[in-house]
């Protein structure tokens, strides 16, 4: 049942001049932070949290909602234009968005990603509204064994999405997991694999690694190649009609948009799994159901729509555990939780019972900001797409400068800049030798979750592995993992069998 009184109070808050001002400011800040690789929603909320202390709680929440709703939208812009995801979940958008930009279809890709983001965001919020009464039951279905298997599925699905490079995707994933174990172990507190370097005690940070893997690696590639991102600048069409055609694409491929949004909201609702897994899972599913899977990775617009709808839909989903249980669904939500606490709002059942007006304010602000972010991004797409025409000798130093500032600014640590450089060179080597980079950041994100849930599962199951097959969600997840691993072989077998009768006829 919708609390109409709370909804009316929230509407009253949102239509005030002050609220609209903060919503616009939040959206613009979010768009700026989303476009700059490495900065993203978590950094923006963290940087602005102290400022909100002097603000009204409603204004503070509206400002944060503006940031949360807009960073994933603009993060896709750099993913498409310079193969550099503005935020981690935008990494999946690079796979087809960047090839589209190289083909001169940047406007089309930006149009599609912005509209898919807007629709995904709205569907995610609709999901949030629908499931608030039954959240507890859904989240409690997932216990440590299911979390572990979900993380494995996330990693395998990303490896599968690299198409013909599943084996190497898994190798890079395994390497990423080992790197994620560097530093303090969460249960025993023991420092592992630090090689005597104090900096490594806290482990390698995700953001500098991501900046290196995507921004720096791509810039090394671009510098070596020379010219501009667009291979043939004469092909680049940056007219508004192309952007509009892109806007229509999520409606044309409505099945992909709905599927991506559903995956995003469901994954977003699971604490700790986050938007990166959601985006990649949506991308992999899109390949799985496509009649033309070979076109993915080469500039298929569906490969932009699927991850972007999932990425924005996860915002609504991840608010479910954050608000209902006080369990953040992502790093961004963890920081947002701090904002709520700062304003005397204890997340958990209390906020759902006593402060429904706050929840409605947040929902409405996210809705408006999501739409606003899409409109602003669409409006500026024509100009943003021109970035792909800039010569590498101009673009590379600018991107490198912003990327390394982003790397440093998160922890005020200059060694993070060296980590970015190291991962940049590694990413470039991976890229050139046919090792997919994308499983590495996923593994870095999932390493901690996988280890903790694995150890917890063993403890629950008295040290036996049987615990991983006792529940029906576990069995479904195991089936999906096995299916993903055997998918390339099955596909090859199917294609061979299909071509045999044709050859016989010929």
């Amino acid at each position: 049942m919708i609390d109409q009184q709370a909804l009316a109070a929230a509407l009253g808050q949102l239509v005030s001049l002050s609220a609209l001002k903060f919503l616009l400011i939040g959206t613009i800040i979010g768009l700026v932070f989303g476009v700059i690789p490495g900065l993203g929603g978590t950094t923006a909320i963290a940087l602005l949290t102290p400022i909100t202390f002097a603000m009204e709680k409603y204004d503070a929440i509206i400002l944060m909602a503006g940031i949360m709703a807009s960073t994933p939208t603009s993060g896709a812009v750099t993913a498409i234009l310079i193969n550099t995801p503005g935020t981690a979940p935008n990494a999946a958008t690079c796979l087809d968005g960047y090839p589209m930009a190289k083909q001169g279809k940047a406007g089309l890709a930006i149009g599609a990603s912005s509209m898919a983001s807007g629709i995904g965001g709205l569907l995610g919020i609709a999901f949030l509204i629908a499931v608030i009464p039954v959240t507890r039951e859904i989240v409690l279905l997932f216990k440590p064994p299911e979390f572990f298997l979900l993380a494995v599925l996330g990693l395998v699905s990303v490896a599968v999405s690299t198409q013909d490079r599943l084996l190497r995707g898994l190798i890079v994933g395994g390497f990423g997991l080992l790197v994620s174990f560097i530093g303090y172990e969460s249960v025993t507190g023991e420092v592992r694999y630090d090689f005597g370097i104090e900096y490594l005690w806290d482990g390698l940070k995700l953001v500098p690694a991501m900046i290196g893997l995507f921004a720096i690696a791509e810039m090394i590639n671009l510098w070596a190649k020379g010219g501009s991102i667009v291979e043939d600048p004469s092909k680049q069409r940056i007219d508004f009609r192309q952007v509009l055609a892109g806007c229509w694409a999520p409606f044309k491929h409505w099945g992909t948009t709905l599927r991506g949004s559903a995956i995003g909201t469901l994954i977003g609702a699971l604490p700790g799994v986050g938007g990166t897994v959601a985006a990649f899972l949506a991308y992999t599913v899109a390949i799985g159901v496509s009649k033309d899977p070979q076109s993915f990775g080469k500039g298929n617009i569906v490969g932009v729509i699927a991850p972007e709808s999932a990425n924005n839909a996860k915002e609504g989903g991840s608010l479910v555990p954050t608000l209902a249980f006080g369990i953040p669904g992502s790093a961004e939500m963890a920081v947002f939780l701090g904002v709520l606490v700062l304003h005397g709002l204890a997340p958990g059942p209390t906020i759902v019972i006593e402060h429904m007006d706050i929840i409605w304010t947040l929902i409405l602000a996210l809705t408006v900001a999501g739409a606003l972010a899409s409109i602003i991004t669409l409006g500026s797409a024509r100009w943003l797409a021109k970035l792909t025409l800039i010569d590498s000798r101009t673009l590379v130093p600018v991107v490198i400068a912003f990327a390394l500032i982003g790397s440093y600014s998160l922890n005020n640590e200059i060694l993070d800049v060296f980590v970015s450089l190291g991962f940049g060179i590694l990413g470039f080597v991976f890229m050139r030798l046919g090792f997919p980079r994308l499983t590495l950041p996923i593994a870095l994100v999932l390493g901690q979750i996988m280890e903790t849930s694995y150890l917890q599962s063993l403890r629950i199951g008295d040290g036996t592995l049987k615990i991983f097959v006792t529940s029906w969600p576990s069995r479904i997840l195991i089936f999906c993992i096995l299916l993903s691993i055997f998918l390339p072989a099955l596909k090859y077998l199917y294609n061979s069998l299909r071509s045999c009768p044709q050859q016989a006829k010929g």
Partner: protein
Amino acid sequence: MENLFPRRHRASLVLDLLLLAFCVTIIALSAGLDSRAKLFPVLVGWFTVALIVIDIVAQSDTGFGRAVFTFFSGSAEAEDREVEARKEARSIVHAIVWISIFVVAVWLFGFLPVIPVYMFISMRVFGNNSTLRSLITTAVIMLIIWAFFEYALDYTLYRGLVAELIAD
């Protein structure tokens, strides 16, 4: 060896061996850890070692190697990326060295003095842009960086090791 592993796969093979060395190092370092702290890393380590060995086998010019490759890739033909990489070797080294110089310079002198110098040299010397255009672009980018980080966010960018030593 020459017959078993084609020359075009040599660089991938080297990368595989480096990754293998990393995995073995992690497994070896685990020996001195608490049993709970090493359980999962060792499991992942051995799993990754197995995958690397399979990848090495998949690159071999044998019937079994080709079958393994087909099983995991869903295709009988491999894409040849190494040839392309070898062609651009000089410009790749140049790119890596130039970006590394920038990082070391930032570490020594900080972001604010290094970025304009780096940008100007990249545009003017390597990009053959006009001096005026290089100067204007550099100035605009520096203004944006300063206005956004130092002015709007009131955030102090890294000033460099040299400045820290002078201050001390």
